[in-house]
């Protein structure tokens, strides 16, 4: 109870500040919209080539995971400026649970992600995506898990580096291979075998595959199982790391 209350106080504070500065929320929303309208049409004529009748049903799930990952990767930047303002220190000197300090921030990130996901799915349906409701629900839940993992990791990284200048390159280094090897934009099956095998080692590819198959309404294959497994594992690891940094005495 106490934990939920404390998380809620932090969450409410974060949300209040975000709503007061809606530019960021709008930029976050624009990103998937732009991808959908400026990149989606390029895929349309190619969809048949990689075994999809409907390009949107292929593309929207990928966008969803990308949104979950990349939006959340940047969550930590806000924490650095909060740390510089002394807010983190002020919160750590209260008796509040250290995990609640992280959790409240994650809730805000997840709420933002959820709203963005709804917009994306809504637009997807509007342009002609075909996906069963339960598949979309499963896909969004997976996206939220991935987003939570990335946001927790980003917060942990922020408190470890405490500087935008050292955090930005790290995020870039992580983002490039994730983007290229997870098959978000184009399916990995298009490429040569060695590239496809390499992408087997990219956990996010399994998650993208899982969200795609759930959007297709295909719950019977082991793709969904693998993807969910990876998402849960990443989430657990990131939560552990995030809590550890908030708990660490000299954060």
């Amino acid at each position, binding site marked *: 109870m106490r934990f939920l209350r404390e998380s809620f106080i932090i969450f409410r*504070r974060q949300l209040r500040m975000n709503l007061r*500065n809606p530019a960021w929320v709008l930029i976050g929303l624009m990103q998937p919209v732009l991808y959908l309208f400026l990149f989606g049409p390029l895929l349309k004529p190619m969809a048949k080539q990689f075994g999809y009748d409907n390009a949107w049903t292929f593309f929207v799930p990928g966008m969803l995971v990308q949104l979950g990952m990349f939006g959340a990767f940047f969550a930590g930047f806000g924490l650095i400026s909060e740390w*510089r303002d002394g807010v983190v220190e002020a919160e*750590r*000197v209260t008796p509040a649970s250290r995990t609640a300090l992280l959790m409240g921030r994650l809730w805000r990130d997840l709420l933002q992600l959820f709203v963005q996901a709804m917009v994306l799915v809504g637009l997807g349906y509007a342009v002609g995506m075909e996906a069963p409701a339960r598949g979309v629900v499963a896909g969004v839940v997976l996206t939220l898990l991935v987003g939570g993992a990335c946001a927790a990791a980003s917060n942990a990284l922020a408190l470890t580096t405490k500087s935008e200048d050292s955090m930005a390159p790290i995020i870039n280094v992580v983002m490039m291979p994730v983007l290229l090897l997870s098959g978000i934009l184009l399916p990995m099956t298009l490429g040569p075998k060695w590239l496809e095998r390499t992408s087997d080692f990219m956990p996010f590819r399994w998650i993208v595959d899982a969200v795609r198959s759930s959007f297709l309404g295909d719950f019977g294959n082991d793709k969904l199982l693998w993807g969910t497994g990876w998402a849960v594992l990443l989430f657990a690891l990131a939560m552990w790391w995030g809590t550890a940094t908030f708990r660490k005495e000299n954060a």
Partner: protein
Amino acid sequence: MIEARGLVQTFQSREGKAKKEVRAVDGVDLDVAEGEVVGFLGPNGAGKTTTLRMLTTLLKPTEGTARVAGYDVVKDSVQVRRRIGYVSQSGSTGSLARGGDEVVDHGMLYGMSQREATERGKQLFDQLDLPGLWTRQPKAMSGGQRRRLDIAMGLIHEPTLVFLDEPTTGLDPQARANLWEHIADLRRRRGATVFLTTHYLDEADALSDRIIIIDHGKIVAADTSDNLKAQVSGDLVVLEVSDPDRVADAATRLESVAEQVTVDGSHASGRVRRAAKAVPGLLRDLQAADIDLESIEVKRPTLDDVFLTLTGRSLRDAEASTEKADPETSKEK
């Protein structure tokens, strides 16, 4: 209220390629009684903030123990946190949030209800001269207002022990004097025990019952300001002699009551124990010898003199040298 024994904090720092262990705090013992206002004085990088962070449970001591407000800072950190208020050097409010919201949220993290925290917060805003700033963003406040807002944050849960880290650094003289009033009020009106760090001598002198001086991570003195100053051998007496030829004579007379007598132009000066008692006799002596004075000045020793006596360098020199020797002083914060 505070009882620390053998506190040590070490950091790893890099000097070129070699890793070096820095003992930022090196065996600190502290005792602070209930209701005391204690000034923790030392140059930048002496270990003040690090000590404070250990006492406020933000940093785990490498060695040693501390009991604060009756609880061990490591084993019962949550109990300690409930009872203390901490106003950090860097401030404590988000620049995008609003003053009132920050204070209420902070109170709620201590378990207060929203109504309770709002009521108390508004009271504090009144008492700390922050009228009409409830909905203003901290970035739109003056330095002094922001500092008072930080203090309101630290007092929202009515702590019995308040830690203030460099409360007036960076404020203009007027805002400083105003803040001093409010700090003095912490005890006067709330009976709180106050532990404040500062590298301003006048601040420690003006606010505290007792002063603890730290240098290079070690406590070098702990006493009342008057007693510390009494350790310096006396007050400085400066005689300005009308006839420059008689300065040497005046200096000889001065030597009968003073130590370390020096002559500079038409001035003779020396350290006199209990000058108030010795000066009348000295004046009679000078008059009898027919030496006229332009002026006589008696200066009480300052804490800077104390620091000089204890460490062999003045506080200002100490600041300059630590900055040179340790470019990473900011790491400590």
